């Protein structure tokens, strides 16, 4: 790995979201300069003026797909990139805008916001479609969830990618980090923490601040929603509230899994 081959070309792209993942890159103050010198960064509109290239080695794609135009662009990015990373919870799972998508919430919300006279097709910037995670449309090579991503969960993967090494996944829930941080478990004190069904990566920040996990890293791969719901019920959280909590940041995956459990 010490041989420096060609400088990898990294594209940073943003779809619908808060731009927090891109901003989190900019907030890596200590690494910012190396970030820009170890790779050729392209399309990072937040940090630099536009440049065009035909192909990127690594595409870091933030945000969910909310318009037909974005979908076309995503497909183009997929075609033109070797390794595509879904950056952040919106890109990985749909993000908060996915909320209740299964219940056809999108149409109703659109009317609520824009009024019934305005049609989705009227927007010249692309017809709106219900928000979806990237993997619903294209192959995603790696997921780095987070709302927004953290340095410690992106960098280990990123540094591998720019050296041409495939990252490995070893999924764990927030509880693992929570214990490693030396925290007592909030669930034992009746505080409705949903850490057991949420992907690790944040460093268990909320429990470490005495606050229950809100789930912003998206679903844990081996999440046991059934048992989580039972536990929440046991500590006095009603079903509706429990489901709402689990869906808040859970995106498509949580809603699919919960659908199975409730059946």
């Amino acid at each position, binding site marked *: 790995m010490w041989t420096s081959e060609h400088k990898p070309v990294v594209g940073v792209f943003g779809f619908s979201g808060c731009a927090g993942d891109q901003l989190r890159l900019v907030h890596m103050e200590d690494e910012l300069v190396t970030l820009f010198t170890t790779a050729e960064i392209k399309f990072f509109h937040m940090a630099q003026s536009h440049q065009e290239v035909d192909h990127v080695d690594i595409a870091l794609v933030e945000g969910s797909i909310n318009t037909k135009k974005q979908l076309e662009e995503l497909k183009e990015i997929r075609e033109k990139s070797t390794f595509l990373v879904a950056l952040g919870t919106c890109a990985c799972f749909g993000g908060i805008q996915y909320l209740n998508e299964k219940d056809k919430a999108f149409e109703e919300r659109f009317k609520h916001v824009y009024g019934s006279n305005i049609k989705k097709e009227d927007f010249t910037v692309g017809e709106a479609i219900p928000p979806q995670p990237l993997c619903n449309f294209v192959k995603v090579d790696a997921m780095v969830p987070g709302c927004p991503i953290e340095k410690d969960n992106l960098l280990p993967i990123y540094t*591998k990618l720019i050296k041409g090494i*495939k990252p*490995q996944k070893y999924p764990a829930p927030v509880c693992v980090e929570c214990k490693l941080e030396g925290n007592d478990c909030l669930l034992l004190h009746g505080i409705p923490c949903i850490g057991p069904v949420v992907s690790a990566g944040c460093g268990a920040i909320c429990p470490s601040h005495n606050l229950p996990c809100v789930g912003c890293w998206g679903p844990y791969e081996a999440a046991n929603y059934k048992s989580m719901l039972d536990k929440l019920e046991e500590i006095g959280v009603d079903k509706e509230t429990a489901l709402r909590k689990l869906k808040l940041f859970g995106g498509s995956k949580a809603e699919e899994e919960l659908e199975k459990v409730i059946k």
Partner: protein
Amino acid sequence: MISDRSKLENPYEDHLATIIDYRDLTSDTRYYKLKFVDPEIQKHTGDYRPGQFAMFSIPGVGEAPFSISSTPTRPAFLEFGIRKVGSFTDALFKKKEGDTVYIRGPYGNGFDMERMEGKDIVIVSGGLGAVPLRSVLLYLEDKRELYNNVFFLNGARTPDDMLFKEDFLAMHAREIIETHLTVDKDPTGEWNHNVGVVTTLFEKINGRVDNDNAYALICGPPVMYKFVIKELLEMDFSKKNILMTLERRMKCGQGHCGHCAIHGVYTCLDGPVFNFWDYERMVELI
């Protein structure tokens, strides 16, 4: 190779080795020949048993275990057969002749070749299982006079999938070891050996093995074991003489990380070679 790791101040000590040769065995599996960089270490290259494995390390990628495919009787180099399946192997496949990797080992119990002296030996492999057993085969060829009948049954999905095909065809021709090769299917139409799963080869040796005094060595995909063992039991093999080498996830190779635990044993220390008694005792072995 430093076979007694317990003597080391740091049993995780690894050594740089240079890739001196490599070639594709199949579309996804590659042969590697390595030599240690440090002459002192290189002196001990042959200090291992067939069936043992080594931990490879590439900085930045990690570590992974691979069976040694060469024989200690030819101690000038180490050989491996490695399938590209994921992150480590992907990175390894990017290495070229002259590049280096770190190696520590040997690990595992390996085959007790001395105990088998004077006995009949049946070696059965399928797919990637040929890699560790190749070590035994080469060893036996070099020390053929110490053993009684030796049979080698090897199967692959198609001729193109057969690892070390040229080696094994040559082995077949040399006739030092009685070699039987088979493929599940032959889309090429150029295969003039057996066609059928590996167990179909057993009829070739039936009645010719001194069952009470024979060892069977097996390695292959998990599905293979059951069928092969059934054949062997029908041939009245002693359970303790049916040896198989297994695979588990490993992070350390020396009984510390826990990943390879099966019930109370560690595949890396107590294995990867197990006998059929172990299989009966430990439900989840295969």
